[in-house]
C-alpha cells in the first residue's frame, strides 16, 4: 500500500476543504477503499477520515413524510431500523442481502453508493483497464466477462456497479445530498452514477472533493411498503455479489396496479431503472402475462458484452419473479435468506 497522510477533520466544511487537495480521498469504513489500496488499485496521497464527523449517522423522519439518512449510517443499522424497514422493506432486504454481517456493520451509506466495480481486471493492476488507466484498453472486453454488463456498456468499459442497496433506492426515487466547496446541492440517484461512454474513469456526478452528506427517500416511496421485494441471484447462497438482481415495488388499488417501480442490478454500470416496463405495469391487472411483458421490455435494449448472454434471460426471470413475489405481498418477517429467489415462502428452509 502506498503511504498516505491521514487527516480527521471535525466538520463537514473542514472535510471538504481537506479533500480539495489533488490525490485526496474520503475514508468512511474503508471496506472497499482499503481493499483497493492494498491491491494498488487506489493510490491516494491523503485520506480524509469522515467516519467521526458528527450528525451524519442519523435517520431522520422529515416533516413531509420522507426520510433522510445520513451518509455515515451503517448499512446494518439502516436495515435494522424497524420504522425504516417497515416503510421501505425492499431497501432493508437489499441491504441484508449484501456482503456479510461483519461488513454491513461497518459499511456506510455513502461508501455503499460509491463502492467501485468488482471487475476482476480493474482489480488486477497487471491488466489493461480504461477505468484505472484511461486509454489503456479493456482486458475484460474479450476476457472472462460472464459477470459483465448487458445494458448501457460501451467499447471502453463493460463493468457493472455492484451495489444491492442502490437498486431499490433508484426504483424509489432516492435523492443524494452533496456538499462541496461551492455549497450544497442534490442529485436524483438515478442520475448520480455515470454510464461508461468514452470516460469510464468518471464514475459519478461528484466533482473532485465533493462529499455525500445524506440520502433522501420521498414520502411517496413508502406507499409501496405492502408489495415490495428485492431479489438477487448469486453464485453461492450468501456473501456474494449479484449476478443479476431486481427490485419491484407495486402500489395495488382496486385489484389493479396503480403504480409500479422496477429497477435492476448487476446489469449495467449503474443501478438500472426500467421506466418503460413500469409504464406497461401501471394501471394493469397483475398476472403472469403482464409480468412477462414487463420483463421483456426491461431487457429489450440488452445485448451481451461477451460470454454473458445468459444474464439477459436470467434478468428477465428475476424481474418476473420479483414482480410476482411483490404482488403476493411483502413478507411479515424478513426472509431467512434475504433476497433469495429460491424461497417461495418466508422462513421456508432451503437447505436441509
Amino acid at each position, binding site marked *: 500500500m502506498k503511504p498516505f497522510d491521514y487527516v480527521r477533520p471535525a466538520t463537514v466544511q473542514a472535510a471538504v476543504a481537506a479533500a480539495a487537495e489533488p490525490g485526496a480521498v474520503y475514508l468512511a469504513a474503508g471496506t472497499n477503499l482499503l481493499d483497493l489500496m492494498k491491491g494498488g488499485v487506489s493510490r491516494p496521497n491523503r485520506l480524509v477520515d469522515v467516519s467521526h464527523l458528527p450528525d451524519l449517522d442519523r435517520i431522520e423522519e422529515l416533516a413531509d413524510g420522507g426520510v433522510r439518512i445520513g451518509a455515515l449510517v451503517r448499512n446494518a443499522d439502516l*436495515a435494522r431500523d424497524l420504522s425504516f424497514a417497515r416503510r421501505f422493506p425492499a431497501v432493508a432486504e437489499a441491504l441484508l442481502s449484501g456482503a456479510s454481517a461483519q461488513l454491513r456493520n461497518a459499511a456506510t451509506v455513502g461508501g455503499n453508493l460509491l463502492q467501485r466495480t468488482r471487475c476482476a481486471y480493474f482489480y488486477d493492476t497487471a491488466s489493461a483497464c480504461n477505468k484505472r488507466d484511461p486509454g489503456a484498453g479493456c482486458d475484460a472486453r474479450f476476457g472472462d466477462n460472464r459477470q459483465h454488463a448487458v445494458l448501457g456498456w460501451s467499447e471502453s468499459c463493460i463493468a457493472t456497479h455492484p451495489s444491492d442497496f442502490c437498486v431499490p433506492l433508484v426504483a424509489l426515487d432516492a435523492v443524494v445530498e452533496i456538499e462541496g466547496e461551492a455549497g450544497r446541492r442534490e442529485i436524483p440517484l438515478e442520475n448520480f452514477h455515470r454510464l461508461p461512454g468514452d470516460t469510464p474513469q468518471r464514475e459519478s456526478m461528484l466533482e473532485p472533493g465533493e462529499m455525500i452528506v445524506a440520502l433522501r427517500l420521498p414520502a411517496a416511496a413508502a406507499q409501496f411498503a405492502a408489495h415490495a421485494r428485492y431479489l438477487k441471484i448469486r453464485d453461492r447462497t450468501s456473501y456474494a455479489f449479484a449476478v443479476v438482481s431486481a427490485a419491484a415495488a407495486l402500489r395495488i388499488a382496486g385489484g389493479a396496479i396503480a403504480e409500479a417501480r422496477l429497477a435492476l442490478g448487476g446489469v449495467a454500470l449503474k443501478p438500472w431503472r426500467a421506466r418503460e416496463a413500469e409504464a406497461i405495469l401501471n394501471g394493469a391487472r397483475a398476472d403472469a402475462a403482464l409480468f412477462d411483458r414487463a420483463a421483456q421490455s426491461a431487457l429489450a435494449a440488452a445485448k451481451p458484452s461477451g460470454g454473458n448472454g445468459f444474464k439477459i434471460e436470467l434478468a428477465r426471470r428475476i424481474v418476473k419473479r420479483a414482480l410476482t413475489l411483490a404482488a403476493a405481498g411483502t413478507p411479515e418477517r424478513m426472509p431467512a435468506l434475504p433476497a433469495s429467489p429460491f424461497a417461495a415462502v418466508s422462513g421456508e428452509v432451503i437447505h436441509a
Partner: protein
Amino acid sequence: MSVPTTLTVNGVKRTIEIDDPRVTLLDLLREHLHLTGTKKGCDRGQCGACTVIVDGRRINSCLALAISHDGAEVLTIEGVAQSGAQGGRLHPVQEAFIAHDGLQCGFCTPGQIMSAIAVIQEGEAGDDPERVREAMSGNLCRCGAYQGITEAVLEAQKALGAASVRKVA
C-alpha cells in the same frame, strides 16, 4: 509522524504509537499487541478469520484502519474466556464449539467464535438453523465444519438463555 492511538482491548486500556497510518486493526492486534488469536486469512474482507467485536459490533479487522478506531473498545478471542484462580472457564460458545466439533484445523475458529458471540447478542436468528447459517455466512471454513458450527451456535444460545427472536422487519 507518530500518532498515539488509544484502544481498550479486552478490558485493558492500551495506548499505541502508530507511526504509519497504513496499519490495520488486525495488524495492530497481531504485530503490535501480539494478540495472535485473531487470524489473517484473506486480508480482504472475504473470509471472516479476522472478526473482532468493536464497540459491540462484529467487524472484519483487516479492512479497518487502526488509526480510525482511536478510542474504540475491542474484544478479541483472547478476552472471551473467564480467567480465574482455578484456571478459569471457557466462554459457553467456546465450550459448544468443542462439544459439537465445530472445527477441524482451527484456523477459522477465533473468527467463527467472535461472530457467533455477536450473532447471539444480535438476537435475530432465534432457533432457526437457516437464519443461523445466514448470520454466520461471513465466516468461511476451509475444513467445512459448518454443521458443527451451526449446532454449536444454537446450543450456546440456549446455554446463554439468550433473549428470544428479535423482530427484524
